[in-house]
């Protein structure tokens, strides 16, 4: 018996990622024709801000969804982490401490979700709808109608700074996290258990995988990446309001699903999420250059989401 049925190359060519690459290239070319401003290094660099923060969370969310769970509280975690940074700033903390506070708040929020889901066995969709209100609610209690402004000057670098030429800090961080999550999901035991849990949690448990621990860690990871995104977003906006990042959870989930991660768990890749992030970024930017209102873009993304999932299913049905 051979180890592998088909070469990895031929498999890759028939995969979801191949479809996404085609879509991405098509969107890129369409944009280049539609607007004379598109093919410009600085403009393209600016366009990346449309997706980098969401994509950071989407990597962790992808793993969570592959494991058969979901976290709808990510945007609210951003609000709470940003509020915590604001409080820390008012207390006179410096930039490194602010970053630490933001990330730590994210991890704590993730841990709370993790306890509810992994320890108490509650359904994650409901728990995170609850914590979604709770986390943002705390921000509202702290801030009310106020805002935190006046973050230290160095702090602006995380959301506005450039590492080299057109490569912003956020873009580089996005790439680094993509690589890290690629390794974690596809190259480690932990990643393997995530797939096993997503495909069959009972069999995974019967195979000696500490299912609850894995789930808990996955919630920590979405919390962590939300905390990181909170640092970037707060730095980019230079201020904190409790309404920060409203509705972002749905964009993150859309990105994950568009990236080919099965919402029922069990399959999906980081490469797919990266491509989906780029497609969503290109679409929003391209429409933006044509001054198309954001809501029209979201119709397009909604249709794209349903179409990319429906078309393979319909074709398969006709095939059999």
């Amino acid at each position: 018996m051979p180890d592998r049925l088909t070469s990895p190359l031929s498999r890759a060519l028939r995969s979801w990622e191949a479809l996404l690459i085609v879509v991405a290239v098509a969107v890129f070319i369409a944009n280049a024709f539609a607007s004379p401003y598109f093919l410009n290094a600085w403009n393209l660099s600016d366009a990346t801000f449309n997706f980098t923060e969401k994509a950071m969370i989407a990597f962790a969310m992808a793993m969570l969804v592959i494991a058969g769970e979901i976290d709808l509280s990510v945007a609210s975690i951003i609000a709470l982490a940003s509020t915590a940074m604001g409080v820390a700033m008012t207390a006179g903390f410096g930039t490194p401490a602010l970053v630490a506070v933001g990330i730590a708040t994210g991890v704590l929020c993730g841990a709370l979700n993790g306890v509810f889901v992994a320890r108490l066995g509650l359904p994650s969709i409901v728990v995170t709808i609850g914590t979604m209100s709770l986390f943002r609610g705390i921000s509202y209690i702290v801030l009310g109608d106020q805002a935190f402004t006046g973050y230290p000057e160095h702090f602006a670098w995380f959301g506005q700074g450039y590492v080299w030429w057109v490569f912003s800090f956020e873009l580089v961080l996005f790439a680094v996290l993509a690589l890290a999550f690629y390794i974690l999901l596809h190259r480690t035991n932990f990643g393997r258990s995530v797939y096993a849990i997503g495909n069959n949690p009972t069999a995974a448990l019967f195979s000696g995988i500490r299912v609850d621990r894995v789930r808990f860690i996955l919630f920590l990871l979405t919390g962590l990446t939300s905390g990181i995104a909170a640092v970037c977003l707060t730095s980019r906006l230079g201020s904190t309001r409790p309404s920060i990042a409203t509705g972002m959870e749905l964009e993150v989930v859309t990105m994950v699903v568009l990236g080919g991660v099965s919402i029922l768990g069990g399959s999906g890749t980081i490469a797919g999420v990266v491509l989906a992030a780029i497609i969503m970024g290109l679409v929003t930017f391209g429409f933006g250059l044509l001054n198309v209102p954001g809501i029209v873009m979201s119709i397009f993304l909604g249709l794209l989401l349903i179409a990319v999932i429906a078309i393979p299913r319909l074709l398969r049905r006709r095939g059999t």
Partner: protein
Amino acid sequence: ETKRIALVVKALGIGFFEAANKGAEEAAKELGDVEIIYTGPTDTTAEGQIEVINSLIAQGVDAIAISANDPDAVAPALKKAMERGITVISWDSGVAKDGRQMHLNPSSSALIGNTIIKLAADHMPDGGDVAILSATSTSTNQNIWIEEATKVLPNYPGVNLVATVYGDDLADKSYREAQGLIQTYPNLKAIIAPTTVGILAASQAVTDAGKIGSINVTGLGLPSEMAGAVESGATVSFAIWNPIDLGYAATMLAYNISNGAKAEPGASIPMGRMGAATLDDNNEAAMSDPFTYDKSNIEEFKSIF
């Protein structure tokens, strides 16, 4: 070569901003070599405005005139725009000082603050409780007006400000907040809503509660939207400046600054038929006085804006 001036609004679809766009187009026609890009997010968020600003930067527009959802959050993006040589001014709802070259207030904030209190006080000879129903808690302009209003409160003895609540410029939320005010404060004599969404919702709530005559709704509204409330008596009078003039003036200012007019304290920059804007120490200027509407003149204006 035509100048491309972007009129960035808080959200698309709001009557006030549609009217401002009319004014901008009027200015463009008058100037001849101007193209107006009317744009904005579909909901009133800073993030949405930032995406819009980024795409305007990429298009290399000549000027951005913005009514901001958040004075601080949009500032970094606008700073970047200025670095790339784009003229940036704010109008209606301002941007933090370093995020724009100048700000055009529709009127002087002190005047507006005073007007909204006065409109309420004029119709409550015996004094009593009043409450404020504002837009979002982060709206710069509303917050400044409320601040100014509280400052002049001592000049109106007997007028007792009992609460300030926020309807987020959402019709349903504003309605509920107004309802809450009516229930909580049995002696309420007036609701002041310095926002067009809020004043509409509040007058609806007062009508539904059967309190026409005992609670007067006032504040800032559009004649076209408020005609019904004035007719029913829920609102005796309200004020607003002309949004068409505001859009016109903002466009004129953006055009002139982009053509080299210096925006610095004390400078006077022409704005077409609206005269000239004189900048104060914060590079802010006021356009004109608010104008009061009541039964006597509403018919005349309701078809205009």
